């Protein structure tokens, strides 16, 4: 009887703790969501009303009774459409070509024994420990000498060889049993065959993780496109968004609408691939 009561008590306590934690989790989640929600609500009202309901806080701060899509319509007349398209092109090519390069490099470092592979790996690690902003200026000078200013190639090239992506993929490749390689060899596969037929098919989650790293690097790229030239044909999303902040007037409504567009695209991609992304990060350390 006593044991049963104690057990019931423990169960109840657990339920309360579970509920408490869930509510706490939900509250923290809402706190994270609030700025994005506020941005979204304000993208639906005219710019002159942006700060109208901020002080004191009222229900209209977070909701609007008269939503309008005018700000989104205004975006169509701005550079943001072309800029978003450019960002998609640049990020897309970076992901495809970058994954090819990074996975081959990671494969070489993980599977092919060669002299100096340790040094090459250290160089790769060092390359992503140095912040890109620190090398951007000398790199921009080189690109200028090579006439790569205001070109897609100039925007894409710095994103292709990503040390972080190579590191992630190499760690994953190291976990693939060597027996498979041996078996492949016995069946007459060369290095390319082993890479193409054994490593790549087994590594889809980590390829997706590395692809997202490459994608986000380009999607958020701000300093580099500014250094590399900013003509209107090669403008990228973050630059176009920042350009909306004029020096005399800022239409926050349109700016928030632009922010929503630029946020939703990576958000959709991350949500679509989130399962693989978590899987890849959580399994890269496993042996």
């Amino acid at each position, binding site marked *: 009887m006593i044991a049963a009561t104690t057990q019931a008590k423990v169960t109840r306590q657990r339920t309360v703790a579970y509920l408490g934690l869930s509510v706490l989790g939900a509250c923290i989640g809402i706190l994270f969501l609030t700025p994005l929600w506020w941005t979204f609500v304000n993208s639906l009202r005219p710019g002159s009303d942006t700060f109208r309901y901020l002080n004191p806080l009222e229900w209209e701060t977070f909701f609007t009774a008269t939503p309008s899509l005018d700000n989104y319509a205004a975006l169509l007349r701005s550079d943001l459409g072309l800029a978003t398209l450019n960002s998609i092109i640049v990020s897309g090519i970076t992901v495809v070509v970058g994954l090819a390069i990074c996975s081959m490099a990671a494969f070489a470092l993980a599977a092919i024994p060669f002299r100096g592979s340790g040094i090459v790996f250290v160089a790769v*690690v060092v390359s992503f420990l140095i912040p890109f902003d620190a090398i951007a200026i000398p790199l921009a000078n080189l690109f*200028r000498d090579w006439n790569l200013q205001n070109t897609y190639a100039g925007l894409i090239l710095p994103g292709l060889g990503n040390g972080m992506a190579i590191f992630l993929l190499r760690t994953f490749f190291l976990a693939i049993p060597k027996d498979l390689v041996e078996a492949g060899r016995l069946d007459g596969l060369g290095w390319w065959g082993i890479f193409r037929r054994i490593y790549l098919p087994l590594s889809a989650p980590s390829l997706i993780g590395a692809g997202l790293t490459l994608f986000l690097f380009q999607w958020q790229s701000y300093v580099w496109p500014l250094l590399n030239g*900013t003509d*209107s044909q090669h403008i990228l999303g973050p630059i176009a968004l920042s350009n909306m902040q*004029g020096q005399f007037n800022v239409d926050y409504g349109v700016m928030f609408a632009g922010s929503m567009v630029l946020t939703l695209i990576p958000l959709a991609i991350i949500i679509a691939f989130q399962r693989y992304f978590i899987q890849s990060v959580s399994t890269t350390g496993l042996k």
Partner: protein
Amino acid sequence: MKRKLLAATSLLAAGTLFLAGCSTSSPNSGTANGSEGSGTGTVNLLGPEDPATFAPVIAAFKAKNPDISVKYSQVPFDQLNPTLQQRLGAKDDTIDVYTVDQPRLSQLAAQGFLEDLSSLKGQTKAAVPDAQYSVNLYQDKLWALPIWNSTQLMFFNKKALDAAGVKHPSIDPAQRMTWEQVVKDGKAVQAAGTQFGLLFEQVEAYYQLQPLAESAGGGSGITGDKMLTTDITNPGWEKAMQWYADTFSSGLSPRGVGGFQTSPVFTSGKVAYFIGGPWDIGNFAKSSIDWGVAPMPYFAGGSQATPTGSWSWGINPASKNKAAAKKFLEFASFDPAGNLATTEAQTIIPANTAATAQYLPKLEALGGDKSKGVGSLIAHENTETAKPRPVSIGYIQFEEIIGKAFADIRNGSPVSERLKQAAQQINDAWKQL
């Protein structure tokens, strides 16, 4: 393991050395290698404005000079200076003409980032007001041509003032209000139900707050033969800043709203008096509130001072098409039609005197009856009360440090101590020049 660590360290060291080598040698390598060019072809213009702003002047120039095309690139406003520093430092010849923030001209000239335009001194002097000529001089040479000018005005919310029975301020500069009166009336308006009494458009910007110190007798804050001596701890500066701090601590002005986020607060009807620029006229005209405009106030017993200055355009010494760039620059600054075209899509005062005369009536008409008389008010302020920002190669550091001090002061830092601290920081920064 040890070997790997050693290899990593040496690689890191080599990498750092390589980077250091690149970043220090590139900006200084070689001399300005630009050329006059053929006088035709493409001129690249770089600035922080929306492309629509300069489209009219580019089209007007093309109509007169069919063999020269102007291509405009926009850089975000807050990234303009770092981007210019990097690209001009690397002798980037894809910039021919660029916009020059007037108080930054002396530093850009001292760095060798501007082409000497002294041969155009006579023409410039004849075309623009004196203050607009002198801000483009550094060490007696002319480095850029003035394009835009500016001033500050006081806007007021008629409905809010009426509710408190406060008289509307006059637009006549002879009946300019004092800051003391603004505070008194602002509080009365607040008591009658309006949320805030007073709001500056650029709450932390030296451009807009310099006149407070000037009016209280504190000067610009920079003195000395070389204009590298700080002077921001004198009684005038302390008085002005204490007054400014009080407007926030008393609740007359809101603390939470940053620079250039403020005009929406005025258009939502929550503020009695708003200190803003001519660009607000067009903006406010579109809003639903009833407003009027008056001269920027001054301190009782002090001098009358208003901000001035805006943007000039200069030529990159590394440009390979200087002759055509110069033609475009002369058109945009000296030709009244060209200069006027730069203001077609943006409410801003043209620097050219003849263009200003044509522009002000148009500006006045923008606000209809509400801005009646603003044309002659601006003309008066440009010639009588305009106080340009100091010409100093240390201006950039000064502006940045004083801006932080303004931010702290409005958020409650003790005025006298914060100004002393800022003076110390500015002196330290200038030691490195």
